């Protein structure tokens, strides 16, 4: 991995590129919203400080070379009390007939002792957002800090908007605090409790592993949703006898059930709200907001994924179907529906005061500008001038053959001493024309970027004669 000179390891990343699988096709580099990827030696490389864990690269990779780390499942057995925190979008992936109690039963057969829905935590967020909205001194619009990829995007690309972030933890943390508290009240020690989150995306993992603006997290580990989805699907199809338990006849409220979907949060907030999904839509909007061209909006719900968490990269089903199923379920719930959990558990509202004390993010959310060329202003000025001089020569075609996503990215790489002008094929061609470079040298550079494999015949590649994976 490449590291920025401005500091290493600020963000923990859940996304890893498997070099043995990556074929350097560069699709990921072309979709990355922060320009965090380059191609070297025929492999995609990540510039860590720029990555916001949105997962667009994971989505685009045709050979599944990008993997999302998860904790070893057997780790759950290190704990006496094993809580699975399940977001509603997991359930939304299954046919209408599959009930939450069946899903819960499968999770229990895997070893969990308690299955709890994350959306309960949103019950605490509603009054917490109201409270913040009443603070007149806060800037408008307030921006929801629900989506960790959006929070990180703001840190690296829009540091001026950090002050607009609602300093609130996510429903996930609230649900986790609640579970721990309930178990402790029943005599368990904190060390005996393992709280595991079934995550729909990479950003949530990164947020759990290195929370922004928080010192510690009540969440013990993460399990990727695709893993759980496959296990549930298999069990249901094989009609394995399950331990019967009729807990979870949806005790989540109608409006909080769809909290993770686009408009789910915004529709629970008073005032003029706006919900935007998709990382490029979010970026475009923040760009304009930063220019001060938007007024009159009180609260912004921003989600990196299309359709909100239904579009999470770790979901296995079509995002539109997932969203539709959840909305449908929500409609069929009676308003204010609070069917008691069968385990005689106290409602999350019983811990309202305790959780409201924990809901605020207390530490500063720090800016981490990805644009800054140097900590020294004069040096940054020199670098900027040089980068602009280089742009006079680069073609502006953004062809990506240099291994950088755009001509401007290459120019900036060069002034940061992470690249060379001869990476540009246009420059090499014109240098060869003027006899300033020989063909052999040019080929060598091309291979240094794209590796040797792309120069040999391979009939097994996707779309070729004997396609095979």
């Amino acid at each position, binding site marked *: 991995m490449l590291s920025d000179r401005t500091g290493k390891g600020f963000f923990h990343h859940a996304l890893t590129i498997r070099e043995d699988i990556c074929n350097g096709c560069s699709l990921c580099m072309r979709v990355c919203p922060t320009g965090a990827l380059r191609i070297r030696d025929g492999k995609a490389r990540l510039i860590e400080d720029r990555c916001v864990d949105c997962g667009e690269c994971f989505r685009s990779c045709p050979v599944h070379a990008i993997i999302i780390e998860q904790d070893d499942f057997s780790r759950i057995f290190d704990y006496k009390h094993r809580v699975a925190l399940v977001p509603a979008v997991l359930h939304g992936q299954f046919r209408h007939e599959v009930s939450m109690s069946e899903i819960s039963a499968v999770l229990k057969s895997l070893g969990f002792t308690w299955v709890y829905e994350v959306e309960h935590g949103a019950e605490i967020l509603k009054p917490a957002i109201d409270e913040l909205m009443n603070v007149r001194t806060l800037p408008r619009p307030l921006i929801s800090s629900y989506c960790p990829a959006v929070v990180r995007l703001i840190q690296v690309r829009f*540091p*001026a908007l*950090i002050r607009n972030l609602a300093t609130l933890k996510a429903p996930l943390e609230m649900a986790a605090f609640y579970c721990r508290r309930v178990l402790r009240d029943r005599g368990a020690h904190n060390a005996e409790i393992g709280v595991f989150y079934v995550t729909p995306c990479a950003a949530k993992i990164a947020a759990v592993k290195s929370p922004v603006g928080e010192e510690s997290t009540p969440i013990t580990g993460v399990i990727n949703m695709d893993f759980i989805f496959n296990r549930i699907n298999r069990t249901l199809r094989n009609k394995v006898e399950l331990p019967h338990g009729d807990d979870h006849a949806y005790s989540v409220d109608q409006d909080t059930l769809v909290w993770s979907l686009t408009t789910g949060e915004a529709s629970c907030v008073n005032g003029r709200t706006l919900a935007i999904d998709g990382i490029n839509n979010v970026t475009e909007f923040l*760009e*304009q907001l*930063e*220019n*001060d*061209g938007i*007024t*009159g909006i009180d609260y912004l719900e921003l989600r990196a994924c299309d359709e909100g968490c239904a579009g999470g990269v770790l979901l296995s089903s079509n995002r539109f179907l997932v969203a539709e199923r959840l909305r449908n379920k929500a409609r069929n719930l009676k308003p204010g529906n609070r069917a008691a959990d069968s385990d005689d558990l106290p409602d999350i509202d019983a811990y309202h005061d305790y959780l409201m004390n924990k809901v605020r993010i207390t530490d500063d959310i720090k*800016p981490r*500008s990805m*644009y*800054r*060329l*140097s*900590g020294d*202003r*004069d040096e*940054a*000025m*020199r*670098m*900027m*001038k040089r980068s*602009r001089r280089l742009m006079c020569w680069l073609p502006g075609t953004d062809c990506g053959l240099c291994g950088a996503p755009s001509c401007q990215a290459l120019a900036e790489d060069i002034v940061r001493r992470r690249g060379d002008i001869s990476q540009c094929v246009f420059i090499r061609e014109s240098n060869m024309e003027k006899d300033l470079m020989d063909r052999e040298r040019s080929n060598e550079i091309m291979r240094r970027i794209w590796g040797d494999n792309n120069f040999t015949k391979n009939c097994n590649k996707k779309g070729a004669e004997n396609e095979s994976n």
Partner: protein
Amino acid sequence: MAMNFEYRVEGGDFTHAGYASSQVKKMLKQLGVESTVIKRVVVCLYEAEVNIVAHAWNGVIIITLDADNILMKLTDNGPGIADIELAMQKGYSTASPEVREMGFGAGMGLPNISANADRFVITSEPGRGTSLEITINLNGNAV
């Protein structure tokens, strides 16, 4: 070692308003300027740019950037301002109802620029055009 940039602005073209602000914003981020200072620059430039779009026939923005200061000169061909003192008052605007409909023309433009600039000079010749010179020190703080 100052750098110069020039952006042309068309009167009435609200679709492309804000381009210069976006470009300048990115440069200031590259230079590592404090976000509070960037905010002030962007507010000034955006307001001034929108003023040209809303009131003038066309105009040009010349940005002079060095390590310590940004100078923004905006010169337009347009109706000009008859009473600058009046135009500088909060809430005063001659913007048309159509322009206000789009969310512009609240009469906060010039006062806003004045509040955010370190140095602000406005000159106008009614019937010919208006010229703004806005300077902001890049090492400064929020106002």
